[in-house]
């Protein structure tokens, strides 16, 4: 049973009986079994589990990057399991990803990296993209780094630029695979706080995988995967 701590919006992603395996025959590895999951607007779901348990696999399936071997995936109410072409592209445009590292294009400045997150969306407006990007960078404490190259920024700063890029596209779903594991505690904290903020205020659904216990507290729900099966872990508020 999903735990309802606040008023729940409509489901952004819905996984029904998802099963996934890699390889076939003798090489077959079953990674995920019977995944049933609904993630709603405003929720931040943390996915935990030992290394190799299938967290990344689940995230790529939820982000439509990988087709599940079995089961149905619904995104914003539409069944995307067998969707292709322009329809899928349009839906994908409402998802943004945040990776562990190397989120940025090294040949674009911080500002240009942020703008790259909006150019493909209907929100793009040549007159406003830049002021909006500057504003977001300022909000994230990077106002003076707008024209810096990514390799001139610290890991935490890079991750914040990536968050600005996520924010400017106003996605419905954010998939973040261990976004803090390459950061120290303070920088990691900043990143997850921003993600939490995005979920709460921009009504995104956020799915975040992590090994880092210190950030469990931002989760509205926590999902633990072990041996391919997942179960919700009740959240304790201190």
């Amino acid at each position, binding site marked *: 049973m999903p735990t309802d701590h606040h008023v729940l919006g409509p489901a952004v992603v819905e996984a029904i009986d998802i099963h996934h395996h890699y390889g076939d025959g003798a090489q077959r590895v079953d990674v995920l079994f019977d995944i049933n999951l609904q993630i709603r607007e405003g929720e931040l779901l943390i996915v935990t589990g030992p290394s190799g348990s299938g967290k990344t696999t689940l995230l790529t399936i939820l982000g439509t*990057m990988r087709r599940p071997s079995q089961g149905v995936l619904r995104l914003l109410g539409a069944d995307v399991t067998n969707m292709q072409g322009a329809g899928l592209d349009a839906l994908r445009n409402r998802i*943004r990803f945040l990776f562990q590292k*190397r989120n940025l294009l090294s040949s674009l400045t911080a500002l240009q990296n942020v703008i790259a997150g909006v*150019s*493909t969306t209907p929100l793009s407006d040549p007159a406003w993209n830049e002021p909006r990007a500057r504003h977001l960078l300022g909000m994230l404490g990077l106002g003076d780094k707008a024209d810096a190259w990514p390799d001139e920024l610290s890991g935490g700063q890079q991750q914040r630029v990536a968050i600005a890029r996520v924010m400017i*596209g106003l996605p419905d779903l954010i998939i973040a695979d261990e976004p803090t594991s390459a950061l120290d505690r303070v920088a990691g904290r900043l990143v997850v706080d921003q993600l939490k903020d995005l979920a709460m205020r921009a009504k995104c659904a956020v799915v975040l995988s992590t090994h880092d216990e210190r950030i469990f507290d931002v989760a509205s729900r926590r999902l633990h995967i072990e041996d391919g099966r997942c179960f919700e872990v009740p959240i304790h508020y201190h």
Partner: protein
Amino acid sequence: MALTLPEFPLPALRRWRPGLLLSRLMSAAKTAASMPLGAQQLRRQRTSTLLSLAGVTSSLLVIFAQLGIERAVYDSGVRLHRSVIADLLLVPAGFKSLQLHAEVPVAMTDIVSADPGVEGTSPLWFGVMSMSHAGMPTPRRLAWYAIDVERPAIDVPGLRENLYKLRVVRRILFDRDSRPYFGDLAEVAGRGEEVPVLGPPDNRLLLREMFVVGTVAIGPNVVNDGAVVISEGTMSEVFGSWWTDRPAFIGITLAPGADLLKTRESLNRAVAGRGEVITRQEFEARERAYWSRETPVGYITDVSFIMGLMIGMVFIYYAQYQIIRFYLPEYAILKSLGYDWWFFLCMIGQIGAAIITPAFLVGFALARLVYGVAEAALHLGMSMGMREMVVSLVASLIMTVVSSLFALRRLWKVDPIMLFE
């Protein structure tokens, strides 16, 4: 009056929407242009960028060189053709090139002249001989053109004013644009002095001596280093009177008001295959076609053009491929942000354009230099004209587009899933 719009069959329109494609391409181009990614990546991949630039520049040089050589060969090959003053020409049946030395039976002159549309005829004889004079160490081969002094078939600079001098036998005019193997002949003769020269060795024990009494301007071509213009009388005395019966072509002047094509038709019927009547344009076109299709020159220039094109393509592709390979994960990021193929095509095209533009400019400047050097050595009239510019621009465009499409194929493999590792 009320304006009513005709009803279009909309479903048929919906199937093929070039407008939509174009607008997607345009918006992708705009997005790509607003993102200075390609230029920056090229700047960072300095070695491969410079290598590619050098490669593309040299390939354009090859293209420029072949265009220049081609133009020079063809243009110099038809210099004499352009100076013909006739409306129509009677040439040997199946005429291809003057250099093949085919001849028209002179008896055809009477048949041609009998046509009411013809005002007059003037034959031209053409051959080659070796020539030497006191200021020249060894004899050298050159072309001779023999004319009817009363009705010259050609008009080249210098001929009109010197024509009367040819009335005296063994007096000849030398082509002052000849290659510089003939010593100071042009200079001395140009001053008005008579220069004795030795014509071909002769087994009829006749005098070999002739006198250069003036100069004309014709220009050398690939097979002839120079030329002289002589009279029909000189020709029959030096080379033998049977030559008179064998003109290379007969120029035909039409009577006032005669229709060009109709006269041509009736003349062709009259000569009945013993010759062929063609226009001046066709005369020139056939000579060009001969050089481009039936000589190694045409073949070599075509091959070098294609080679230049391929080398250029490979080098542009090299720069694009290096960048795609090096920045593959970053292109995967762009893909995860929803950038489509149109965008990637524009992006890669931008990289190609950033290579081809400077390469073209440098290649152009170098080519002008090369043309200058080559012209000084060959005297074939190598020059940078509109045709060279347009053809090389089109070649550059083809290079960029084709290599971009190949490079795009590389990007096909990019899957954002590689970012989750």
